[in-house]
């Protein structure tokens, strides 16, 4: 069921997927288990992909996804419509937990020595059971294109920070860049990503 948008909640543009998410969240606040399963089915596969990209270990990625969605189940009121979309909120919770884990274990030192293809190949053997992802192939294409369009130095900083879980200081240390340069490239990259994604949407 699609929700009727609550005009009191900021939503930049009419976004059917976001409206659906907010409706699921509204039902979840009333304890609706099917609504939870709906959100889980829509976003758990991407959430796991994100967690796996950061922590590089499947069992840890699954723990992170479980922990994040348990937090959603416990406290759906934690979502604040003024701070972004539901999917961004969900991915933010997953990302925060994944980054927190790798920083605690400082495994990025080890992971930096591993090639990404090898790491991903190692984790490629998953359970046969599948939750059907929403897929979002179009979204995936758009976001990948937006990343590709970034100047290489900005894309590199964003990739290290978001997908490798490195902090600004760790990136500065690893690359030899001044901290101020890391900050400015991050901001410029995020602005450009935003502009590109908005341009595609409109």
């Amino acid at each position, binding site marked *: 069921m699609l929700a009727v948008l609550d005009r009191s909640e*900021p939503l930049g543009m009419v976004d059917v997927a976001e409206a659906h998410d907010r409706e699921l969240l509204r039902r979840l606040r009333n304890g609706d*288990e099917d609504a*939870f*399963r709906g959100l*889980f089915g829509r976003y758990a*596969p*991407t959430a*796991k*992909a*994100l967690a796996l*990209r950061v922590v590089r270990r499947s069992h840890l*990625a*699954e723990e992170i*996804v*479980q922990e994040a969605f*348990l937090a959603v*189940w*416990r406290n759906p009121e*934690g979502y604040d419509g*003024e*701070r*972004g*979309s539901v*999917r*961004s*909120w*969900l991915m*933010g919770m997953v990302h*925060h937990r994944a*980054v927190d884990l790798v*920083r*605690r*274990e400082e495994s990025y030192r080890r992971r930096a020595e591993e090639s990404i293809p090898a790491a991903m190949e190692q984790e490629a053997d*998953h359970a046969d*059971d*599948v*939750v059907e*992802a929403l897929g979002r192939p179009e*979204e*995936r294409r758009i*976001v990948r294109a937006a*990343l590709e369009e970034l100047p290489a130095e900005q894309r590199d900083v*964003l990739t290290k*920070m*978001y*997908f490798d*879980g*490195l*902090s*600004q*200081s760790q990136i500065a240390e690893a690359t030899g860049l001044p901290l101020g340069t890391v*900050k*400015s490239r*991050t*901001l410029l990259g*995020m*602005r450009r*990503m*935003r502009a590109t*994604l908005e341009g595609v949407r409109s």
Partner: protein
Amino acid sequence: MSTRDHALIEELMALEVLDGLDGPDVQILERERAMHGDCAECRRIESELRDTAGRMAFSLDPERVDPAMADRIIALGREEDEELPPALPPRDEFAERQRSRGRGVVAALAIAAALILLVGAFAVFFQRQNGSKVLAQASGSQQVVHFTSPTGSSGELAMAYTPGQPGVFFWGSDLPDPGDGKAYELWMIDGNQAVSGGCLEPADGSLAAFVDADLGSATSMAVTTEPAACPASPSTEPVLTATLTV
């Protein structure tokens, strides 16, 4: 609406939404937020940055997820609802059984490390390097469990233990000050019963402590803010909880 320049807060928020903010900039962002107050422009900036960061995840190919996980989460959430009513239950027989073992908090890193070596049950070590904290875990029977906050408060707390053996190592960082005359008290939860695991007082938000406690049949842990005298029964709602796995 704030009339302050938004350049700095935007720069710091961009780092924060990517979980890349660290060092003194964390406090600078907090200060900026406080100085901007209820600022519509700040909310707009943050919302846009969070959306942009969140969408980056969708550049990845989805991963397969066990469809039963959703039901497991629901079951876990339901269990926790039953186990952690607004006010934690008082101690009773379970508490009495555990009392002799459950209150030996030693809040000193060196002592904790020594105890870990003595007990020999943990392959967990804690170290500081260039200001960063590291909690590493060896394989084997040891379990490392991370607490989460039902209230969304900041701070991290983790515990390591070997199922069936006494002794639990706690490690925390960025924990809020519990307040003057207050401490964090650990509770081991078994059904409707809670037994104190002792009190912890973080130093500058950090703590490392070994508790000579037997988790017994406890299925979850909770942390409440209590008077530093460390009462026998919880008097506030939990600020951190964790589910134990056997």
